[in-house]
């Protein structure tokens, strides 16, 4: 690979972090707005459900998202603040259908300690100010003037340093905040402050409340007429106001999200850490609060955000599982749940680990992720291409044809599957248990091959065999009528629709029949000069049940012909040329344009445009088939394997066709939440658990590897573990377990105790390389006298804070440290020692590393940056050679948990793109991305394109792309270098022609060339 890298998203973030509901796109339109870390999605509520309107990329990680309505505005505005201290106020312009920026700015302070509990952004309900808590001890105010314009921001000192939540109170004459905080004795209290805008200071508020629930973490301000605040704890919920205090105990739980139901604030939905949804009700007499009630409604995904939509429908956004659209029913279902899940929206996040495999052995990689957390943990199989979900399968050999039929003409779904073999026809149907089982339709002739089947009018079915056409009632299932082929002739090919049958017998006879209620009528006969190879009569005209056109493919002269129906006059004839006969013809229409498709025996597909408007049907144009317009189908197909537990590591073993995972299950039935950790073996086709090895109490699976050792043909699974004891800061004990898969079972072959957590395992020169706490340790696989094997320590290397991530190449070892960035070690065979060769002296806290090539290593760190370092073997001094030089820096805005070499697409080695090496990454937000190393010439070209695109594609909210991609941590901010943003570059293809031409001019390259080059890059993912 190289230092010139191209970073592109293959799967966008799906972790829903925020959501809100309001009238954003119009005063009469209700919208759901969802934040997925670096993107917002705008949806419209419609009778049909949630209608997606727009996916808006934001050049920042969204920290807060709020809809608000300044006085005098007809629709809501959207306030967004990003983690890098930018904010913007967005408005929808309905005429232009554009998002415009009302205000934006920078709210960073030069000095200040970023808050530990995340950023808080709130808007006064009376729109007098926006409040931000970004740094400990400071409350930032952006005031509104009386015209709704924002004014210069200022800080107010906030005495409370450990702030858990801040909200504005409703119904206060002066803007008033309530602060939930923890004191230095770990007790929690709330306090109110009035914001004196003129004096830029706080004034002691109307009330406070001390010594709340120790787990109080969330404030819910209650709107008028009740006002006051709900304080959500882990064991109690309290309603508090200047005049009232009401509390109720709750089952111990951590409330993760809430959604207000009623405008008067009397009911709230609360989602907890276990995915349970509760309804909290403030009971009141007129405006006097009399108490609180809480009811369990049911279970959802573990919610990170809850938005009440309309008419009992609720959106549940999740970070740990799929997001959901649910309905609150008035009556419980059989399981006692009031919650009905109506839609599921895929979320891959958090991707904790993944592997790249080729399960179908077709040369195309698939990614299998460990996704989700807690009860919502799952494996996801992500592959490129259109997905087909297997619902049921039967083993059948020698299938010649298949047709689906309905039990009645008006049925919405097909019931029967007719499967034809060389000498029989069988009928399958889905039974009530959704299983495919064989059935019978008496009127069918089942002792011969079926040539064609179709549903017909009047609840009838048509079956064509070589000797006859049978009309069968789909209700009585009995034969109604039969048309027999003339003696001496057998039917070769046939087609039909709901009212018509067309068939060809030997000798070039073409017969046209019409279907009546219980009767088949021969309408027309034609004699053609050659044998017919294929037929079609699919109605593409105005009548969906009747075709005025038949397509016929011919042997001998290799032509396709169109006949008018019912008179069977030849409309046109097209010679295909060549010697390959047409095997199948189809009349069809895409987006209102009619085509004749013709498949040849050698796999070619020809398409002809049909000119139907003149009535004089003519083949207008021949061309290559392009089904580009159908390509809206999502590119990545995702299959979910819910586990009900949290998979943290995954590994595939080709030889045994299995996966092994390290997982943990939370046992909530016990009062003390016990975790259980497992090594599980899964079949790589069915994904069923086929064997389980339970780990000890407190023992976590940390790493997993499939490998083999020198002088041993077996392939093993090696698992590294840690004993995580409550009283220890770092694990001081762990194990390496070596398993063999025998008879589909995990057999423990060897185990080795370690002096710490085994964070990483690598196969290394026929040995096992382990990262154990601050040490890198190499183990040999030794044969004992009794024929068993053991791991024997050979050598090691100290000097890390925690060696978390290790990759190897030849004798080189690249280590990603908890705090000390990347270092390069080398294994010296002669001395049997591991030594440090070079290191990056920056203090990066690593989250993943990968080796791009001999000299260049890739790292991801916890400030969401990517960087590359280069080994400097040619340095003049030891000092120079001992330093890994930083060659690339980039702000990805995503937390990467894993890099893997590989590709999601079929890589054809003869194509240009096939030569470009790629690394795949997976992130906490569910992003799957690709990093591709470009040749220098390409890199420079696309760098130029990127800088031109920056001028044309504007950052939403006025946010700058250049600033967003700049490498950023507590110590420094520097421009991105040697990384390109593929998402921006590929958005070139979405531009209008005029904008493309603008860029083409600046680039000095034609639009077509630019499109071609960018399209090539899109084939990387």
């Amino acid at each position, binding site marked *: 690979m190289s230092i010139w890298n191209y970073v592109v998203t293959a799967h966008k973030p799906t972790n829903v972090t925020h959501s809100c509901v309001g009238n954003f796109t119009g005063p009469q339109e209700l919208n759901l707005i969802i934040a997925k870390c670096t993107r917002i999605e705008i949806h419209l509520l419609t009778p049909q459900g949630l209608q997606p309107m727009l*996916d808006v990329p934001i050049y920042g990680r969204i920290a807060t998202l709020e809809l608000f309505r300044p006085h005098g505005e007809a629709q809501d505005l959207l306030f967004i603040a990003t983690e890098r201290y930018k904010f913007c106020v967005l408005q929808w312009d309905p005429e232009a259908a554009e998002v415009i920026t009302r205000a934006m700015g920078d709210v960073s302070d030069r000095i200040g300690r970023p808050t530990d509990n995340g950023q808080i952004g709130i808007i006064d309900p009376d729109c007098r100010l926006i409040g931000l808590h970004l740094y400990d001890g400071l409350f930032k105010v952006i005031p509104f003037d009386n015209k709704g314009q924002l004014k210069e921001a200022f800080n107010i000192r906030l005495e409370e340093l450990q702030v858990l939540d801040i909200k504005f109170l409703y119904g206060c004459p002066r803007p008033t905040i309530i602060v939930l905080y923890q004191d230095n004795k770990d007790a929690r209290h709330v306090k109110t402050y009035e914001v004196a805008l003129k004096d830029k200071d706080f004034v002691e508020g109307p009330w406070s409340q001390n010594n709340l629930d120790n787990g109080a973490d969330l404030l819910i301000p209650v709107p008028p007429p009740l006002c006051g605040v709900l304080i959500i704890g882990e064991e109690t919920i309290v309603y508090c106001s200047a005049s009232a205090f009401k509390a109720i105990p709750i089952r111990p739980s951590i409330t993760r999200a809430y959604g207000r139901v009623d405008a008067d604030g009397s009911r709230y939905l609360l989602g907890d850490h276990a995915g349970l949804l509760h309804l909290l009700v403030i009971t009141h007499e007129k405006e006097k609060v009399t108490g609180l*009630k809480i009811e369990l409604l049911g279970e959802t995904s573990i919610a990170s955000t809850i938005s009440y939509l309309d008419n009992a429908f609720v959106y549940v956004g999740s970070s740990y599982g799929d997001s959901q659209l649910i309905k609150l029913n008035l009556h419980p279902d059989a399981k006692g749940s009031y919650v009905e899940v109506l839609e599921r929206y895929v979320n891959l996040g958090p991707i904790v680990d993944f592997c790249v495999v080729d399960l179908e052995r077709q040369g195309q990689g698939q990614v299998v992720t460990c996704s989700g957390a807690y009860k919502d943990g799952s494996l996801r199989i992500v592959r490129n291409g259109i997905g087909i979900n297997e619902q049921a399968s039967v083993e059948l050999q020698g299938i010649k044809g298949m047709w689906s039929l309905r039990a009645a003409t008006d049925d919405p779904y097909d019931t029967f599957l007719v499967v034809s073999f060389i000498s029989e026809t069988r009928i399958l149907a889905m039974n009530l248990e959704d299983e495919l089982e064989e059935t019978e339709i008496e009127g069918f002739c089942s002792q011969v091959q079926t040539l064609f089947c179709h549903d017909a009018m009047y609840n009838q079915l048509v079956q064509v065999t070589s000797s006859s056409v049978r009309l069968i009632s789909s209700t009585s299932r009995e034969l109604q009528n039969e048309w027999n082929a003339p003696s001496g002739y057998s039917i070769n090919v046939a087609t039909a629709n709901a009212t018509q049958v067309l068939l060809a017998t030997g000798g070039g006879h073409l017969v046209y029949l019409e279907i009546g209620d219980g009767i088949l009528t021969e309408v027309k006969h034609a004699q053609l000069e050659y044998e017919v190879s294929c037929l079609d009569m699919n109605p593409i005209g105005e009548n969906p049940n009747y075709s005025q056109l038949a397509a016929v493919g011919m042997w001998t002269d290799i032509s396709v012909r169109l006949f008018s129906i019912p008179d069977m006059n030849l409309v046109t004839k097209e010679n295909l040329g060549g010697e390959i006969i047409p095997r199948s013809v189809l009349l069809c229409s895409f987006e209102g344009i009619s085509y004749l498709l013709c498949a040849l025996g050698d796999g070619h597909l020809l398409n002809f445009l049909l000119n139907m408007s003149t009535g004089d049907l003519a083949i207008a144009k021949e061309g290559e088939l392009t089904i580009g317009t159908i390509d809206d189908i999502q590119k990545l197909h995702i299959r979910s394997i819910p586990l009900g537990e949290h998979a943290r590591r995954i590994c595939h073993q080709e030889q045994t066709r299995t996966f092994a995972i390290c997982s943990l299950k939370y046992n909530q039935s016990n009062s003390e939440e016990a975790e259980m950790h497992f090594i599980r073996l899964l079949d790589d086709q069915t994904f069923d658990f086929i064997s389980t090895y339970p780990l000890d109490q407190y023992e976590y699976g940390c790493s997993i590897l499939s490998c083999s050792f020198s002088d041993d043909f077996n392939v093993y699974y090696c698992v590294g573990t840690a004993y995580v004891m409550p009283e220890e800061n770092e694990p001081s004990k762990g194990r390496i377990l070596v398993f063999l898969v025998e008879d589909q079972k995990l057999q423990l072959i060897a185990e080795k105790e370690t002096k710490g957590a085994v964070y990483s395992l690598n196969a290394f020169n026929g040995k096992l390389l382990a990262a154990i706490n601050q040490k890198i340790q190499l183990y040999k696989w030794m044969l004992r006298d009794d024929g068993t094997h053991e791991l024997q320590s050979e050598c090691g290397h100290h000097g890390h804070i925690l060696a978390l991530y290790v990759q190897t190449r030849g004798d080189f070892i690249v280590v990603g440290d908890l705090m000390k960035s990347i270092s390069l070690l080398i294994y010296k065979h002669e001395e049997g020692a591991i030594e440090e060769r070079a290191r990056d002296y920056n203090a990066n806290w690593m989250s993943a590393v990968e080796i791009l090539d001999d000299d260049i290593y890739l790292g991801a760190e916890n400030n969401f940056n990517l960087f590359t370092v280069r080994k400097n073997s040619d340095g003049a001094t030891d000092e120079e050679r001992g330093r890994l030089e930083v060659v690339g820096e980039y702000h990805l805005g995503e937390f990467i948990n894993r890099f893997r070499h590989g590709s999601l697409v079929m890589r054809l080695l003869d194509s240009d793109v096939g030569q470009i090496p790629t690394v795949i990454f997976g992130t906490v937000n569910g992003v799957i991305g690709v990093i591709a190393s470009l040749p220098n010439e390409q890199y420079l070209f696309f760098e130029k394109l990127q800088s031109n695109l920056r001028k044309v594609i504007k950052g939403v909210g006025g946010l700058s792309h250049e600033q967003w991609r700049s490498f950023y941590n507590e110590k420094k901010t520097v421009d991105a270098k040697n990384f390109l943003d593929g998402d921006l570059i590929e958005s070139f293809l979405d531009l209008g022609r005029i904008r493309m031409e603008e860029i083409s001019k600046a680039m000095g390259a034609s639009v077509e060339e630019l499109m071609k080059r960018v399209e090539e890059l899109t084939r990387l993912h």
Partner: protein
Amino acid sequence: MGSLLGHWPSFDPHNFSQLRPSDPSNPSKMTPVTYHPTHDRTIPPPNQVISSEAKNILLRHFYQRAEDKLRPKRAASELLTPEHGGKHPRASASASKAPPC
């Protein structure tokens, strides 16, 4: 329970009335169009590019204290805005909060 549930708020009774639930085993495949603005209104009006007050919060505190001291007493009471309720003079509120170091 029945008394707590029901009477769900409705903005438009038609919303979701024709919703066809999808097969729960198949997630929704809806993907909205990605927005790439090329217009100029992504930049707000010049007076709506907001920055923070340049003056350090500590310096501001000192200046405010100094101004308060210089003010003649009678004028000070006139200056008190109704926001303060007139009961608690500013000095006591700010005196309890030591400036940050």
